[in-house]
């Protein structure tokens, strides 16, 4: 099987998410890459060095500079005459482009795969990870997005892919990139953070949340999250919300502070490697999933913990 992997990049370097996709693609067959961008020669060269890579198709055109799905999807679809599977990372970029490619090929996409079970069989999470489905595609070609945390990253050295220029239809003229604001916070982003400190409704108000949660997060270089209850109560902005309708996270260590552990919240964080819960209610459901639990008043316990670390 010949696979085509969409390389995610910023026209200067390859995004790490692509490396996990290469690993998934290698389980299916030969790995070819697609670099669509503008003045993206350095990306193509780096991509060719990824271990196990064959051909690297490079489309260098102003129309592909910002990865607009309207322009990139037809290009990818046009290369699928010679490939059997199209794979992209289950990132906002991959999720934006892949279904458009699938619809153009009249293929039902397999979203966010966790494993490759056979040439056309995959596992994927449904119901926010509360169930895992094993699905088999009956389509002639495959279109797949890959959950990055489920596959090892391919090595960035050791490959000797051949770079080949390709051209597509270019700009479809229906969409224009205006601007991007990529947060340059000192704090890591929630979905990629190694450590997350989350607070719940027990934090009382915005000031208390800040006073209790922020110092611990600063100490650990952690991202800050919150339960829906804390967000609804206005302690923190919406984008802090971890849960089924918020962000799905899987850090190395997740601190749940004053969070009771509603199903909705657990769905967003239960794949964390280590869960640490601090709650004064010893019967709180969060303790059923926590690896380390402390039944204590968070107002004294958290500052004490922060001070001792």
């Amino acid at each position, binding site marked *: 099987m010949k696979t085509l992997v969409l390389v995610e990049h910023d026209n200067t370097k390859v995004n790490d998410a692509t490396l996990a996709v290469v690993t998934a693609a290698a389980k299916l067959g030969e790995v070819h890459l697609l670099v669509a961008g503008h003045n993206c020669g350095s990306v193509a060269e780096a991509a060719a060095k990824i271990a196990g890579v064959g051909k690297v198709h490079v489309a260098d055109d102003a129309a592909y500079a910002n990865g607009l*799905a309207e322009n990139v999807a037809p290009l990818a679809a046009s290369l699928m005459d010679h490939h059997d599977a199209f794979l992209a990372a289950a990132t*906002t*970029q991959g*999720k*934006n*482009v892949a*279904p*458009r490619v*699938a*619809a153009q090929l*009249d293929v*039902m*996409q397999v*979203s*966010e795969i966790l494993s490759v079970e056979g040439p056309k069989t995959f596992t994927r999470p*449904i*119901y926010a990870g*509360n*169930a*895992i*489905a*094993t*699905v*088999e*595609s009956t389509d002639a070609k495959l279109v797949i997005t890959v959950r990055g945390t489920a596959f090892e990253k391919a090595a960035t050295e050791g490959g000797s892919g051949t770079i080949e220029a390709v051209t597509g239809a270019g700009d479809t003229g*229906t*969409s*224009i*990139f*205006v*601007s*991007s*604001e*990529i947060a340059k916070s000192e704090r890591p*982003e929630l979905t*990629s953070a190694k*450590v997350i400190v989350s607070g719940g409704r027990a934090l009382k108000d915005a000031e208390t949340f800040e006073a209790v949660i922020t110092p611990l997060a600063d*100490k*650990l270089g952690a991202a800050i999250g919150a339960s829906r209850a804390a967000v609804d109560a206005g302690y923190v902005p919406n984008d802090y*919300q971890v849960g*089924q*309708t*918020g962000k799905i996270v899987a850090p*190395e*260590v997740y601190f749940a502070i004053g969070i009771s552990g*509603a199903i*909705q919240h657990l769905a967003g964080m*239960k794949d964390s490697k*280590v*869960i*640490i819960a601090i709650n004064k209610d010893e019967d709180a459901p969060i303790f*059923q*999933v*926590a690896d*380390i*639990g*402390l039944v204590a008043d968070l107002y004294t316990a958290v500052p004490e*913990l922060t001070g*001792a*670390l």
Partner: protein
Amino acid sequence: MKILVPVKRVIDYNVKPRVKADGTGVDLANVKMSMNPFDEIAVEEAIRLKEKGAATEIVAVSIGPAKAQETLRTALAMGADRAILVETDDEVEPLAVAKILKAIADEEQPGLVILGKQSISDDSNQTGQMLAALMGRPQGTFANTVEVDGDSVTVKREVDGGLQTVKLALPAIVTTDLRLNEPRYASLPNIMKAKQKPLATKTAADYGVDLTPRLKTLKVAEPPVRQAGEKVADVAALVEKVKALGIA
């Protein structure tokens, strides 16, 4: 301008889904069902655009069982003008949903189609993008802000690590993210009024769409169960554990 808003009836987000013992799927019998939360945000956004004068009519569409009428009535009670139910008892995959919506869009000629970015049931995150491809129109996925201006719409999108703004020629497809708005609750008088609003019932065959699934579900299983760990006695013991993790 007309806005088309597809809505899906799904298991309520506060209910824990249970995998059926025979591993064929998730048990939906006697479970509370609600409108998909991202679709509620889509309905709300359409109503706000109408209130601002950017839209004139809102048509809600659902593809699902007869009971999806309730979901459509919710959309009507919130402020949609009329509804279309494409009735089927089969599981309909995103590709088939997109094909039905494409056929409806051909008939209705909306300026905007606003959908939830994904359903909280199968979590595919595909329908909006597929519809955009089938219509050959631009897409503003994971919308954080939507502004209609003449014959274009400017969408601020939630992307990994920040925001991206794109300007799309109408007609366009928008999919909603969580921060776009906070959906209103329907008032009792509006719930009563919604019962009088028109709701047309159709079938997939009316639109010439084949619903045969392309993906075979071989098995649905519980994810690996997390075992509760240990409780520590005091903060000092916790500090020791945290230090042992090598993060502090």
